[in-house]
Structures are given as structure tokens and as C-alpha cells.
């Protein structure tokens, strides 16, 4: 099994510099050794590490350390500091090994959906263009105000692998890119679905089933999200769905082990074949075989 969406963080140091935030103060850590122990106890063999702690190249040092130390266990998703000139950073991070894609939250397109759209004017366009040219994954968590821009980018780059984070919920302006223990308080199902669900027509648009703790209005096992999970399965199919815990934010509640059981709680009718794809098969194909 593969956990497709986790974060690792070292304490802030000269060796592993990172941004310090309220959510991640200097002495906060989510070490890879703890993740490996949690994974082992829950039956996960591999994971996809999502960069936290900043978007500058030096902020990626702990992620790179983990990828280098455990090359068979992990793949990584980096971040980009300068969306206007991203090529050098994207290539540099990818060439150091294990980083297969880049997380993107700001699209830089018109917030008014009635505006004529030219993707070349979007501030993130160079990222999409370079990702398409180099077959990098776009790990996508767009704001609700910009999600209507995504279909235009898919039309421009129809073969690109794009992975919507957190069940394809798109946060309101005020929510941070890393949710931590934030409650998103969005409608269920999300209103952004009208611009998202039709993306199943593109061959490589996927969705990570993660972040339930933030988007549910209920306590574990977040049963109000069950219909939405099954809607995503019907629309995108299991070979476009991945499972992720969003560790470490789920460690206090509900805990790593219980997060790993959520698919059985929320999708009790899923077939064994589909379950195997969601719990690792899709991630193996989309992330680890690149």
C-alpha cells in the first residue's frame, strides 16, 4: 500500500532550513522515522512526501534527505518559489532524485469566470508548460476562486498528470495551503465540483482521497463524506484515485492507523480490485513508475 499524501518536517536548523509558522514553529518536527514506523504499523510500504516548510530550493533539504536516504520508499512533490521563471528550480529538484512533481495552489488566472480566458496570461502558465514538457506531476490544491481556470489549462495540456488534493475540495481564500488542523467549513459536496468533475475526460487527472478531517462536519469516520467519495469513484474510477493520510496533521486525531482505515468506513461497497488501486495501485502507476 502507498500513502500518497504525507508531510515530513525536521526542526528548523542550518542543515534543514525551513519557514517558521504558527502551525510549524522552529522546534516542531514530523520526522521520517516516525512516519516509517506509522506506515509499518498500518501496512503501508511506500509514501509520497509533499513539501512543507517553504518553496525555496533550500527549504527542500529535508525532503531531499528523506528521498535520498530511502529511495525505494518515497517519492516527493516539491514547491516552486518563482512561478514566472520556474524551469530551473523544477529541473534542479527533479534531477536530485525522487521529486516527481510540484504542488500548486495559486493559478494566477481571472477570478471572474465570465472573463475571457487566455491561459498564457495566467501567472502559473510557465509551470504548467514546463511540467507538460518534462512530464512532471502537478499536485493541485487550487483556491475556490480560481478552480474554474483549471479546465482551460487541461485543454492546453491534455496529457498532463494533475492530481487534485483533498478529495478535490478547493479552499476559500483564507485557508492556508497546508491545512493543519484547520476546519475548512465548505459545503459538502463542494460547489467547485461543477468545474472539476468533468475533468475525468482528461486521461491523467486524478484525485487524492485525503483531508477528511478538515472538510467533514462530523467526527471520525467522517461519514458525511461517504457519498462524495463514492461520487468520485463513479466519475474518475479507481485508477484515477489515490489514498493519502495527510500525516502528520492527523496524528493527534484520528491517528495514523485509523486514517488508514477510512476507505473501508467511507466506501464499504468498493470492490477488492478498486480498493487495491486506491490504496496504492494508482500511486504506483502514477508516481512510482515515472
Amino acid at each position, binding site marked *: 500500500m502507498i500513502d500518497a499524501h504525507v508531510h515530513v518536517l525536521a526542526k528548523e536548523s542550518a542543515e534543514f532550513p525551513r519557514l517558521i509558522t504558527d502551525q510549524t514553529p522552529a522546534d516542531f518536527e514530523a520526522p521520517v522515522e516516525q512516519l516509517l514506523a506509522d506506515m509499518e504499523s498500518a501496512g503501508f510500504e511506500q509514501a509520497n512526501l509533499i513539501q512543507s516548510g517553504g518553496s525555496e530550493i533550500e527549504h527542500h533539504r529535508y525532503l531531499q534527505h528523506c528521498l535520498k536516504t530511502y529511495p525505494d520508499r518515497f517519492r516527493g512533490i516539491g514547491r516552486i518559489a518563482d512561478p514566472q521563471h520556474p524551469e530551473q528550480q523544477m529541473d534542479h529538484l527533479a534531477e536530485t532524485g525522487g521529486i516527481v512533481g510540484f504542488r500548486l495552489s495559486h493559478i494566477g488566472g481571472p477570478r471572474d469566470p*465570465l472573463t475571457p480566458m487566455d491561459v498564457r496570461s495566467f501567472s502559473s502558465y510557465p509551470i504548467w508548460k514546463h511540467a507538460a514538457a518534462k512530464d512532471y506531476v502537478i499536485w493541485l490544491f487550487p483556491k475556490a476562486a480560481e478552480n474554474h481556470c483549471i479546465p482551460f489549462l487541461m*485543454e492546453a495540456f491534455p496529457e498532463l498528470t494533475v492530481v487534485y488534493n483533498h478529495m478535490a475540495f478547493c479552499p476559500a481564500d483564507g485557508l492556508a495551503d497546508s491545512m493543519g488542523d484547520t476546519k475548512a467549513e465548505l*459545503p459538502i459536496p463542494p460547489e467547485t465540483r461543477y468545474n472539476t468533475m468533468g475533468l475525468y475526460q482528461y486521461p491523467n487527472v486524478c484525485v487524492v482521497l485525503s483531508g477528511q478531517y478538515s472538510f467533514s462536519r462530523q467526527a471520525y469516520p467522517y461519514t458525511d463524506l461517504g457519498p462524495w467519495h463514492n461520487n468520485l469513484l463513479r466519475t474518475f474510477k479507481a485508477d484515477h484515485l489515490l489514498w493519502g493520510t495527510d500525516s502528520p496533521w492527523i496524528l493527534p486525531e484520528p491517528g495514523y492507523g485509523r486514517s488508514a482505515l477510512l476507505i473501508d468506513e467511507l466506501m464499504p461497497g468498493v470492490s477488492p480490485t478498486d480498493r487495491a488501486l486506491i490504496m496504492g495501485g494508482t500511486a504506483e502507476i502514477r508516481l512510482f513508475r515515472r
Partner: protein
Amino acid sequence: MTNPGGLTAPPTAEDRQLWEEQGYLFLEQAMVGADLARLQTAFNRAATDCKPDWLQGIANGTKPAAHFDIPNPFERDDVFIDLIDYPSWYPYLLDFAGGKLLLLGPQVRTLPAQPISYVNWHPDVPQTNPLHMKVQIYIEDVPEDGGAFAFVPGSHKPGVGDCPQPIPLSAMPGHKLFPGKAGDAILFNSYGWHTSMVNSTQRPRKSIILIYEKWSPGKIPSDRFAAFEDQLTTTSRRKLFSLEPMTSSA
């Protein structure tokens, strides 16, 4: 509003046959002249007034970006109330509903251009639901690639099976596309498979969708449209808007 010439007669035998066999009627220039101009003006004014709230709702994640519906249109202009029993389509609806017709509501809708449609092919209700009908009125010209309405003739009949989900939408076998001029309207049986096709024009589509159903007890609370009671003075209107109970002689 006035009656456009030649469009007010109850359905002819030919209309009825088309409705029963195909599940739709295309009402060319169902609204013209001053009536259409009045509707366009009210639509555009309401859209201008409501747009800031819509954009804020999108940013908050509480409103969809894929379509912009004017909230509470009946409160904004009487023209939207007058649409409900407009003589170009009302006689057809009343006839097809066996004289017992309920309004469920209007959608005053602007559809942004998008490379994908906001909705797949679908029926609105199962065959077990009372007859469910919609009238879609184009407020501006809608070209083939401008988010035009599309319908699969005959798909409203019992026993047609599950609605296919072809990729792209235009691959649906046997579908009929309805480009149109401002003032054209399509009346369709919502058991049938339909969708809004892709709008690749960069120009938003403006239309109004009126939703009706054959009367059944308890479907609409009697106070749903009570706020507009002063506009609903005839018996037929009061029944249509569920202010008065339907009777066997309705």
C-alpha cells in the same frame, strides 16, 4: 406581456405526436419584440446587481463558478413572474400535464465559457416521478459551440435503460443540438437525457430555465411563492404557484 402571433394555440395533433415520440418541442421565436427586450433588460440588470455576491461566494467556496444563477428572481422583476404562464409555452405545458400543472421554480442562469460542460448527459428525474418538464429560453443568440442545449429524442420513454456517458459529450448517439436565436425556447420532457454542451466561444450563455411538474399532492408547500401573492390574482396562476389547492376540475 403580449402574445406573439400564431404561437398561442394549444398543441396541434402534430405537436402532440412530436412531444410523445421525441420528448421535446422547439418553439422558434417564442418571445420577440418588446417582450424579449423587457426580459433582456431585466436579466442584465439582475445579473449586474447580483454579480458581486456571486464572485464573493465563489471565493468563499459557497457558490459555483460554473453557473451564475440570479437568486430569487421573482423578487427582482415581475417579468420573471410573467414568464411562468407566458402564452408561447404555457398552453403546451398545461395540456401535457392534463390540466394540472405546478411550477417548481425558475433558473435565471448565465453560463461561463468552459472547455468542459458543467453537467454530463442526464435525466432530471426517474420515470416514477410525475411528469417533469422544463422550458429553456435563450436570452441571447446561442451558437452550436456556445453551450447550446442538447437532447436525445425518444430518451424520455420508459425502458430506455441507463443514460450513457460518452466522452466527449458530442459522442452521444442520436442527440439533437439546439442552437438558437434570442427568444427561441425548448420545451422538453425531463425524463429524457439532456445536457448543456461545451461553450467554447469565450462568450457566456444567457438563458432562463423554467421547471414544472404535473401536479401531485404535497409537492410544493402553499407558502413557497406566497411572497408574490399580489401578482398571482387569477385562479389559474394561484394554482400554478401552489397558493390554491388543485381540484379534480382544475
